[in-house]
Structures are given as structure tokens and as C-alpha cells.
């Protein structure tokens, strides 16, 4: 039902309009004379006001009205689209957004924003009186041509309509009425004088005579000096909302033809509520699970028909899954666009000149991933603007261009999307990082670290380079949270930096979120899934190598030694190992030489398994060795291993054992 409720449609429309207006304003900041942009911004504000009033968003309509008037002046050439004006309207965006969402917004804030707006539009705008009903008294005098009665005019309903506008005193003007003897009843001889007191605008009065205005004489005179207010939004709007909500049945037909209309409009796209997409995704996920059960049943069966059908369904399920992945893909442009505004504001706040360049906006990512990337990226950009870039004076002194550059880029590389934030600022001050880390107790004073390891310290919890928690980068969102969020998306984060030249942060996010291919293994009584992307190969563990030794556990891999972790021990299963253990060689995700390939010793390898990832609840958020769970064909649950964390845990356990022995 909510889809056909105009007020609900308006809410969405309002958000779109506000975004359009914002983008338009940002573009206008670069091209202040562009008429097309000015018209577009004006139109957006105009629609926001008009439709807002229509559906009961009175505060929004009233507020937007001022922005619209200001831009009307620009449109008419009475005022320039100055930087102050643009900034004032931009500042008002959040206030309008709050009003459009129906959230309470501070009156004081609104008044301050409007003051800023009016200051920016030099020629003072005569503020119309507030939305309170403004009653005006009018004297109307009108009469109709004699033959109009014969033409179907009926004066009485018109008088009724006038009465609907407000209190009326009607006086018939009978001067033109001839004596009864010569009176022709088919001809009109009467005129009227009406004194009407109404809070409706003048247009409503003229409205009554809309169709006969040409053929009559009408004088309308305001008897008060008070200005008739602008639209009397408040009185009308609340009524509008209620009856519309009651009109049910035409709704579905309405929705259909609406879709038709949209599609017909050169329709490249169809709007689908995000929830529906998520539902669809869940269905596909369940289908994949059931399909793998079918596969199990079929492979245990000797019926060739059953196997044939099972294979076909497997293929179809895979295709459906791939299509779903694509359906949820959304270009990063929508994310990048948000940042233009952010950088604009940052520039003003820091007093630095910042140029934001974006590349690869058409690169696509899963919708949920984009949403979860928003906050970390905001933090990284703020960080670059706040800490990375120098002030114009500092840049000049360093021989750099005054404007600092931040480049936001996205590109697809294989099964990943790589997002990079590059700034040409001062780079990371190694000495300061070192000092901070020692102070925070993250490293010992004499610890030897590679440059890479030093930079990684920035992402440790407890580390903070901000001397003061500035308003920009503060809020308890630290680099460690950024890293954690990225890892929660099964992605990685790398930072490189050159002192004096700038820094680069690269995020790698895997393309698919919900479904991955995995290797199913058994350790004691539990089953686990290892993401296939991390698996390099599987080998047997010869019994002689499985004996506990005092040194590190290493396996001989074609002449190379690779360490391995006994998952049985890591998981403290307390069971005896199966006689012929298998070792799954995985890439541990660690850059250090010699640590790249690690073995995971398991009791049994059960085979490939397409995994629909179910996240673990908040109660298991701290168990980092598992990134999620999946439901197997027999209804059982298998935990999905997070290889980098698992390997790290194994190494820790290893170190502890060695220290103890």
C-alpha cells in the first residue's frame, strides 16, 4: 500500500529532489552563469515546495519557499548565483532533508539558515508573513452580460462558491432591473456586490469565475491594507492527505500504469524497493541450498533422469545466482557524488582549497557493500583533508600548487573492486607514527619494524595521530574501525605513503557478498568451509609428519617447507585425529615472506560446496576465526573460516606453546 500512497512517494521524491538540487548547486559553484543549472535548481526547489505543501509537509514547504524565492531572483537575473548564496542553500539541505523525512528540525536552526540565505541575496526579500491564516476582506462587484443567462450561466452556484471561501455579505444590485412589464426573464439584469472575508488568496476568488471571466465584469478590491499571504498551504494540505490515504482500489491500477509510463519513457530502468531485492536475494539463497541437497540425493541415486534434472537445476541456480548478483550491483557514482558535497564542506571548514577528482564512477558494487563502505570512506576522505593535505600557505612554501588534490577511484580487477583514495598532501610522518605507537604501548621502544608494518600501526585500535580530536575526524570513528569494517566485507586495506608527496589508501573488496564457493572439510565432529579463493591445493599429511614435535610443524611441499596448523588443536576438539589427515594449503593473506602459504590440517575433505553466507549474530562478533556460517544440504551448520584471522590465531597459539615448552 505504501507504494501507492502519494505522501510516501513524495518522501522518496523529496530525497531525490534534494540530491538533485545539491548536485546542481555543486556544479553551479563551478559554473555560476549556467542558466540550465540555475533553472534546474529552481525547478527542484519549486517542486519540493509545491508537492511538499500538497502532502502536509508544511514546514518543508514554508522553508523551501524562501530558497525558491532566492533562486527565482537568480533566475530573473536580479541576483547572481554567488558563492555565499550557493553555500547558504547547501547549508539548508540538511534542514530540508530532516523536514522532508518528517523529523523535527530546530526552529532556531531554520531561522539562522534563512538569515544566512537572505544575507546572501543582497536585495532583501520581503519575507511574507508566516503561514498563519491571513484574513483579508475584499469587496467584489460583478455582473454578467444580459444574454449570459440564456447561455447557461447560473449565478447562484457562483455565489455559493464564494460563500465557501469565507464569510460573505451579498447585496444584489438591482439598478439594472427594468420594470416588470418589460422584464424578459431570460435576460440577466442583476449585478452583485459581495463583501467577502477570507484567508484564501485572491486567486481563489478569481478561480470561482474562471470560466466566465471573459464574459463578465468583475472588480475585486482589498479592503484591508494587509498583504494577502502566499499560498495558504496549511489549511489545505492536511485534508489532502487523509482522503488520499482512503482511496484504496485505484491504487494498484495506478501503480501498474505508473510502471508502464516509466517503462514507456525510453525505460532503461525500473525502480524496485530495496527490500524486494533483498527478499529476492534470500529466495535465491534458499534455492541454492535446496539445490545442493538435490545434488546430494541425485548423486546417491542410480536414476540417470534424476541426475540429469539435478545437473540442469544446478546450472540454472548458478545462472540465477549470477544474475541476482548483477541485479544488486549499483555504480559507485552514487557514493562518490555524496563525497563531492563532503569535500566542498571540508574545504570551507579547513580553509584549504581542495579539488576532488573521481575516476571509475561506473564501476559497480553490490548495493549492501556500497552502503557499508560509505562511513569508512567518509572517514578516510576526512582524514586526507584534515591530516593529509596542507594549508595553502604550507603548500606554497613546499612549492606545491595551492589546491590540494584528492582522487577517489574505483576499478574492477578480477573478482575484486579496488577503491583508492589518493592525496597529494604531506604524507605520513614516520617519526610521529613511531612516537605515537610507542606512547600508546603498541610497540616496544627498540622494536624493529619495516615501513609497511609501521604504517599498519595506524590501523591498530588505541592509536591516534590527532593531537586534538577535531570535529572532522573525531566521533570515535577511528582507522581501526575503518579496517574492521572493510574486513567485515571480506576485503583488505593497504596504505602507502611518501613523506612530502602524499598518501594512498587502497581498499580491495570482493565482488560477491552473499554467496561464495568453498571447500567443505571435517575436523572431529564439526564441518567447516574454507573459501575456495584462499585455497591453493590439498595434500595428504604423511603419518610420520603428524607426530608432535617440539619444533614448528612444517610440511614438505615439493621441496619447500610450509608451516601448518592442526585445526583439531586450534579448536580444542579433544579428539584423536583420523588416521590419514589432509592438509589444505591456503594463502594466508600475509605479506611477510615465508608466511604466505600455510597448511590447515583437517580430518577429512568433503568436497566443493557452494556457500550461502549467513552472518553470525552479534553474540559471536568477537569470534574472528569465523566469518560466517552456512547451512548444508542435510540442514546442518558449517562455520566459514576466516583464513587470515585463523592463521594469526594459529600462530599465536604456536608462539604460546613454544614459550611454554
Amino acid at each position: 500500500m505504501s507504494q501507492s500512497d502519494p505522501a510516501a512517494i513524495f518522501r522518496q521524491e523529496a530525497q531525490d529532489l534534494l540530491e538533485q538540487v545539491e548536485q546542481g548547486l555543486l556544479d553551479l559553484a563551478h559554473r555560476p552563469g549556467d542558466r540550465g543549472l540555475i533553472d534546474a535548481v529552481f525547478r527542484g526547489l519549486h517542486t519540493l515546495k509545491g508537492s511538499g505543501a500538497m502532502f502536509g509537509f508544511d514546514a518543508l514547504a514554508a522553508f523551501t519557499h524562501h530558497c525558491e524565492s532566492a533562486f527565482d531572483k537568480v533566475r530573473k537575473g536580479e541576483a547572481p548565483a554567488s558563492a555565499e548564496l550557493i553555500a547558504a542553500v547547501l547549508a539548508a539541505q540538511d534542514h530540508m532533508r530532516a523536514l522532508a523525512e518528517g523529523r523535527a528540525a530546530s526552529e532556531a536552526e531554520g531561522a539562522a539558515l534563512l538569515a544566512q540565505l537572505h544575507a546572501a541575496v543582497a536585495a532583501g526579500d520581503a519575507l511574507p508573513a508566516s503561514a498563519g491564516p491571513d484574513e483579508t476582506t475584499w469587496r467584489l462587484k460583478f455582473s454578467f452580460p444580459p444574454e449570459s443567462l440564456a447561455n447557461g450561466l447560473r449565478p447562484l452556484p457562483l455565489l455559493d462558491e464564494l460563500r465557501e471561501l469565507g464569510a460573505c455579505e451579498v447585496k444584489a444590485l438591482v439598478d439594472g432591473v427594468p420594470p416588470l412589464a418589460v422584464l424578459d426573464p431570460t435576460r440577466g439584469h442583476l449585478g452583485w456586490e459581495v463583501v467577502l472575508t477570507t484567508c484564501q488568496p485572491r486567486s481563489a476568488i478569481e478561480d470561482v469565475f474562471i470560466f466566465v471571466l471573459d464574459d463578465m465584469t468583475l472588480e475585486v478590491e482589498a479592503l484591508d491594507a494587509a498583504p494577502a499571504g502566499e499560498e495558504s498551504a496549511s489549511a489545505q494540505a492536511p485534508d489532502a492527505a487523509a482522503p488520499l490515504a482512503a482511496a484504496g482500489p485505484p491504487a494498484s491500477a495506478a501503480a501498474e500504469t505508473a510502471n508502464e509510463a516509466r517503462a514507456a519513457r525510453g525505460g532503461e530502468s525500473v525502480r524496485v524497493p530495496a527490500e524486494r531485492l533483498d527478499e529476492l536475494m534470500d529466495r535465491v539463497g534458499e534455492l541454492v541450498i535446496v539445490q545442493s541437497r538435490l545434488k546430494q540425493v541425485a548423486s546417491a541415486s542410480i536414476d540417470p533422469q534424476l541426475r540429469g534434472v539435478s545437473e540442469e537445476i544446478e546450472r540454472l541456480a548458478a545462472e540465477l545466482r549470477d544474475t541476482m548478483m548483477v541485479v544488486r550491483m549499483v555504480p559507485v557514482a552514487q557514493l562518490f557524488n555524496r563525497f563531492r558535497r563532503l569535500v566542498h564542506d571540508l574545504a570551507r571548514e579547513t580553509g584549504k582549497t581542495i579539488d576532488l577528482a573521481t575516476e571509475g564512477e561506473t564501476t559497480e558494487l553490490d548495493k549492501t557493500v556500497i552502503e557499508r563502505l560509505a562511513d569508512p570512506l567518509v572517514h578516510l576522505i576526512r582524514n586526507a583533508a584534515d591530516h593529509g593535505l596542507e594549508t595553502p600557505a604550507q603548500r606554497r612554501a613546499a612549492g606545491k600548487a595551492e589546491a590540494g588534490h584528492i582522487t577517489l577511484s574505483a576499478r574492477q580487477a578480477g573478482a575484486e573492486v579496488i577503491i583508492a583514495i589518493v592525496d597529494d598532501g604531506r604524507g605520513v610522518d614516520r617519526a610521529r607514527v613511531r612516537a605515537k605507537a610507542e606512547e600508546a604501548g603498541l610497540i616496544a621502544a627498540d622494536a624493529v619494524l619495516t615501513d609497511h608494518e609501521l604504517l599498519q600501526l595506524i590501523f591498530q585500535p588505541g592509536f591516534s595521530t590527532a593531537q586534538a580530536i577535531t570535529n572532522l575526524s573525531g566521533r570515535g570513528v577511528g582507522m581501526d574501525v575503518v579496517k574492521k569494517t572493510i574486513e567485515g566485507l571480506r576485503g583488505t586495506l593497504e596504505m602507502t605513503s611518501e613523506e612530502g608527496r602524499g598518501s594512498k589508501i587502497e581498499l580491495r573488496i570482493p565482488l560477491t557478498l552473499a554467496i561464495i564457493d568453498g571447500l567443505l572439510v571435517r575436523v572431529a565432529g564439526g564441518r567447516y568451509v574454507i573459501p575456495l579463493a584462499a585455497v591453493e591445493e590439498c595434500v595428504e599429511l604423511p603419518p610420520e609428519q603428524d607426530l608432535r614435535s617440539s619444533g614448528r610443524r612444517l610440511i614438505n611441499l615439493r621441496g619447500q617447507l610450509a608451516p601448518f596448523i592442526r585445526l583439531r588443536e586450534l579448536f580444542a576438539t579433544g579428539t584423536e585425529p583420523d588416521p590419514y589427515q589432509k592438509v589444505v594449503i591456503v594463502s594466508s593473506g600475509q605479506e611477510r615472506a615465508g608466511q604466505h602459504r600455510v597448511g590447515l590440517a583437517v580430518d577429512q575433505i568433503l568436497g566443493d560446496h557452494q556457500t550461502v553466507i549467513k552472518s553470525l549474530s552479534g553474540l559471536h562478533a568477537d569470534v574472528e576465526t569465523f566469518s560466517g556460517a552456512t547451512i548444508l544440504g542435510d540442514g546442518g551448520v558449517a562455520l566459514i573460516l576466516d583464513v587470515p584471522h585463523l592463521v594469526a590465531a594459529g600462530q599465536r597459539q604456536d608462539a604460546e606453546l613454544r614459550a611454554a615448552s
Partner: protein
Amino acid sequence: MQQAQDMHDDQACDVFQVLTFDLQGETFALDAGLVREVIDLAPETGVPGAAPFVDAVINFRGRVIPLADLRLAFGMARGEPTRDSRIVVIEHEIEGEPTLIGLRADKVHEVTSIPLGDTEAPPRVGLRWRTDFIQRLAKHGGELVVLPDLAQVFATRGGALGAVVPFAPV
């Protein structure tokens, strides 16, 4: 929606609508509004490295939900599963997210009302359980009934953590 809200307010004022159940001989009760379903014991999958209080997950209608053992929070033995053992699936907020959680129960009784007047705040001393784990104590049907403070129990992982702190990544 408004109606439900009003009912809830009534509840907060006058009476607790609860589901009562047994844990190792003691009677507990929780807000009936939280309960989604009561199911028989299901195959459990252990989660190595998790706090003992919540060391397993189960498949509940295609979702993987944690299995929590309030007995551990209240210092009781785990006990062997019996014919009466059940899992009470509730929906509770964990770190801001509505989450389905399975609670072990040795026996589930009924949904019943306990008037506010029949309950009292837990005494600060003298209880053999952690006071901060108990929301109210009640006398019902001649028995002592414990209404646990689920939020606190979950936040401290049944007492595995000293206080409510967010987790630092390792």
C-alpha cells in the same frame, strides 16, 4: 502499531506477560513479547573460541542463530538433556540489531501474567546469583520466579566479560 504501543505501556505499568521455564530446578520467566517460538532440541554446531555461555549455533528456519545457556550465567551446571528440554527462540537486540537467539530450557511451562505488585527488585546482597543479571524477582504460584536482565546477560556474554565493553579487534 499504536494499539500495540498502548498495550505495551499497560504492560509496563500493571502486569508482566511472561513465559515461564525451568533451569536446573529454578523457575525463570521472560517477556512473552520476545518469544518467537519454542522448539525441540536441534542438532547443534559448536563454535570454537566462543564464550561458553554461547558456544553453539543451530539452524532455525534456514537461519543460523546462536544458542545461549542461561544456566552458565547463573552459575548452574549444564545438566544432561532430557525429554523436556527445549529451546526458546527469542528476538532481542544485540548491539543495536534485532537478533534471534535460542535459549536452552530444561522445561517450558506456560505463558502467564505476573502482576507488578507481585514482583520486587533484587536485593543487592544475599543472592547467590549476580544481581545485575536479575531484573525482578517474583512470587508466582507459591514459587520464586526470576526475571533475568537479558540485555546485561548478553552484553557480558553470561559473565565471561567483566563489564559491558565493546570488543577490541585482536
